[in-house]
């Protein structure tokens, strides 16, 4: 593909920011991980399966997954007031639904698996970094999983589709304006477990977005696998 597009940080349209992944960053947790896209850093900790309280919330047929996503108050330029917002509640729920399809919690009736995700430093793509970290943390905790979940935000700069936008790119107002299209999928499948969108994109371009996401998720998957192997070898 001819690549005439100039991105602020000089990346190609389909190029991810440098990724870092590390497993076992919270010793107290049953599983934990850090995942970074460039300057966006997410950490996730898994506690459980443990008995769910209050008792009436327990499900005798299966364990349940409970995700909590939030920004640390200093992770953004305008300090974020601590405590849940409507945005963070929505992202928490989306994260839960993004991860659930790869889990099998039937062996853990009446329990909950808590996934706590916090953003230490935000430069766009925080929910996708959070999902990547959470997926790693669940694997690290030894929860039965049929696959890893890989997540990336595809976006648009005017009419060009680009992978993994930074905040500066997200705020780009030229042309058709900014578009943020966060996706998550089960690695190496065509099953999309997170689909969100804000902006302007013609329906016929969604095919291209899926292609960009597939390519990016393949790379993310490799980074995730490497991080998990490192902790096994230790």
């Amino acid at each position: 593909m001819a690549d005439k597009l100039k991105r602020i940080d000089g990346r190609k349209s389909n190029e991810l920011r440098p990724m870092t992944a590390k497993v076992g960053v919270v010793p107290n947790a049953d599983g934990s991980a850090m995942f970074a896209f460039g300057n966006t850093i997410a950490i996730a900790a898994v506690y459980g399966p443990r008995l769910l309280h209050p008792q009436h919330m327990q499900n005798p047929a299966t364990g349940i997954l409970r995700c909590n996503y939030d920004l640390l108050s200093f992770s953004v330029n305008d300090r974020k007031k601590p405590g849940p917002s409507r945005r963070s509640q929505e992202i928490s729920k989306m994260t839960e639904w993004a991860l659930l399809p790869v889990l099998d919690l039937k062996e853990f009736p009446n329990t909950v698996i808590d996934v706590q995700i916090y953003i230490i430093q935000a430069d766009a793509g925080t929910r996708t970094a959070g999902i990547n970290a959470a997926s790693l943390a669940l694997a690290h905790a030894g929860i039965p999983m049929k696959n890893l979940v890989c997540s990336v935000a595809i976006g648009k700069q005017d009419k060009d589709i680009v992978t993994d936008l930074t905040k500066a790119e997200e705020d780009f107002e030229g042309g058709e304006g900014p578009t943020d299209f966060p996706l998550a999928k089960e690695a190496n499948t065509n099953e999309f477990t997170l689909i969100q969108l804000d902006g302007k994109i013609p329906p016929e371009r969604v095919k291209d977005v899926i292609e960009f996401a597939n390519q990016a998720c393949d790379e993310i998957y490799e980074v995730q696998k490497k991080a998990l192997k490192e902790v096994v070898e230790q």
Partner: protein
Amino acid sequence: MLQNVEKLAGGLQMSSMETTNLTIETFRKMFSAGKRFDGRGLLDLRPLDVNFEISNCAEGSARVRLGKTEVLVGVKMNLDSPYPDSPDKGNLMVSGDLLPLASPRFEQGPPKFEAIELPRLVDRAIRESGMIDLKKLVVKEGEKVWTVIIDIYPINDDGNLVDVSTIGAIAALKTAVIPGVTEEGNVDYKHRTKDPIPLSKETAPLSFTFYKLGDSIILDPTREEQEACDVRVTFGISKWNGQYMLNSCQKSGEEPFTSEELIKIMEILPKKYDELNEKLKKFF
């Protein structure tokens, strides 16, 4: 025979509130045969009705019915300071509540996820489409701007609340007029101007929520159908210079959508957008 099944499924739904496996299995079989209890095709919408000016203290208001689902939407306006990151734009706020009046499923108390999500989805479809020219709502840049507040109240929930609420929001916006301002610079709600809210004449967003059960995809479910489905995905769509634009999207629910399903939905969306717009022409 079908009527009996309907009575049975309906009866169970009413008494238990939980969708039984029997009901889900019935819907699964029917949908894969392309059938629905009310005789619609899988992608057909129920009959639509829109009324305006249903509450005279609101700057604009509308009632939308799609089948038995009914939503009231009102627009109010305030003078406020602009947000620090957009001193040259008016503010848009969308809020809503799932009142216990509208369904035995809704309860009093702090909003549950569904109640948080509904106004956010409507907000994003309207905001990202650019239907409201927020720059024209500035009274004094950096100091005083109009805030447009869209309040959504379902009155009867029989499924597909998000799409019906979006229709209600654009209907209320289209009829809203800006309140007067006193000499001291306060809002004078009793003496309205004749000025409409600055809206694009070209486009208004609509939202379409696709529900999936097994391999079948349906539009505009009744509450009972909606409860039986595995997952849904909502798209906000508008049209500029003849070009369809997706403005917002959100998948809600546990099951994934495949890339093939998404591409198929992309083919359906523009057709449905035109079809519903054609129906809306009768009302505004």
